[in-house]
């Protein structure tokens, strides 16, 4: 899922209780900062740690990017998504709507 498309979803659903946290996995700090500024991304950004503070592979088991998880209002993981292809945004949006409605 490309972050600029996620930004669109964020703008559309943030008032309904939808939030985004993006963790940059490889600590490519300068390029990440530039990307965030260039694409005018407004949700929360964190940077992965190293060693014992490494989260992406060690805690979430993620080795391929982009990988995304949807959490419900209880903080439980209810959906995960790997890669980006045409049509992914629609699938993700459908899941978000379902969670907002059933939430």
């Amino acid at each position, binding site marked *: 899922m490309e972050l600029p498309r996620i930004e669109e979803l964020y703008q559309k659903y943030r008032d309904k209780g939808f939030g985004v946290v993006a963790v940059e996995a490889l600590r490519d700090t300068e390029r990440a900062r530039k990307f965030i500024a260039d694409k005018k991304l407004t949700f929360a950004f964190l940077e992965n740690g190293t060693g014992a*503070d490494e989260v992406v592979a060690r805690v979430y088991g993620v080795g391929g990017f982009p990988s995304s998880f949807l959490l419900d209002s209880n903080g*439980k993981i209810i959906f995960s998504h790997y890669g980006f292809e045409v049509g992914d945004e629609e699938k993700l949006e459908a899941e978000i709507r379902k969670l907002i409605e059933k939430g």
Partner: protein
Amino acid sequence: MRKLLISVAAVAVLGTWGCTRAPATPEQVEAAYKVAQEAWDAAPTPETKITIAKEFLAKHPDTKYTVRVVREAMNVLSEELGKPGEAETLVRAVRAKVKDPVTRRRLGVAHVGALATLKNGAQLAQVAATLGADPGLDFYDQVSIAEAAIAVEAWDTALTFATEAAGIDGEKLKAISPAGRYPTPADLERAVNKRKAWALADKGWAEFKLGRTEDALETFEVASTLDSRQIMGNSETSLPVYRGRTLLAAGKAAEAVEVLVASALYGDEKDARAALEQAWRAQGGQGSFDDYLWSERQRRAIPAPDFTLPDYEGTPHRFASLRAAEVTLLTFWFPT
């Protein structure tokens, strides 16, 4: 995996270089490429881009830009103009003129991809056979040929290249990865194992399709010990789908459900859901499959592990404190 990022490409040539007998110097090729690239960027239509690319390739068929220009032009032909047949013709014609072994190899891999798009299994198997003995093929070449062969059901070719790809090891992976991509031996091992599992999944699927179900199930068994799973137990490879379908065909529906459920619930592969629905019905599932999925998801869902990481000002944040009221998307990315 990750889509090929398309940079710019292409051509047009200054003066009369194309008419002289002496081969162009690297500087001349460089200059011609730059001119072509600018013309490509300013091209008013996709057809113009193709003309620019073909002119460049006609004058400079065998340079370090050949693969890039051919791939860009193939992409425009297939995606923008809807002419995958012409993409195949282009790559075949250029490859015939190329002598540089690396360029020949890379064009061969692109040619296999074009033949998969055209569903031409017979020719794909032939072109793949010309590449088969090339020791320069790397893991990604081998796996992309295997998967192209799977797409056209050329199972012998798929088996050959998936088997080669499964021979990936730490040294080979480091040689084709950016420096520093795997900072620790554990990172490297995890990455190697994941790629092995990926190739073995393709291999097992080819074995199954060739009627060797027992071999396939053994291959999948090995693959599953190597595959790294995401936190919800879903794989980033096709292994669960291939393994689940093979188990189902072998009459092991309950095992198939177990293998498929994590990917179908927490991944979003259509194939995994379709295979799970078959397996679920085969072992007696009744009623609405969507209701089953939703309730299984709720039942198996686990809390997202909390963590603390810094933002770009260096301020640490607990993930739990950033969660939204109804739905939170946690995404792991890197800048491309």
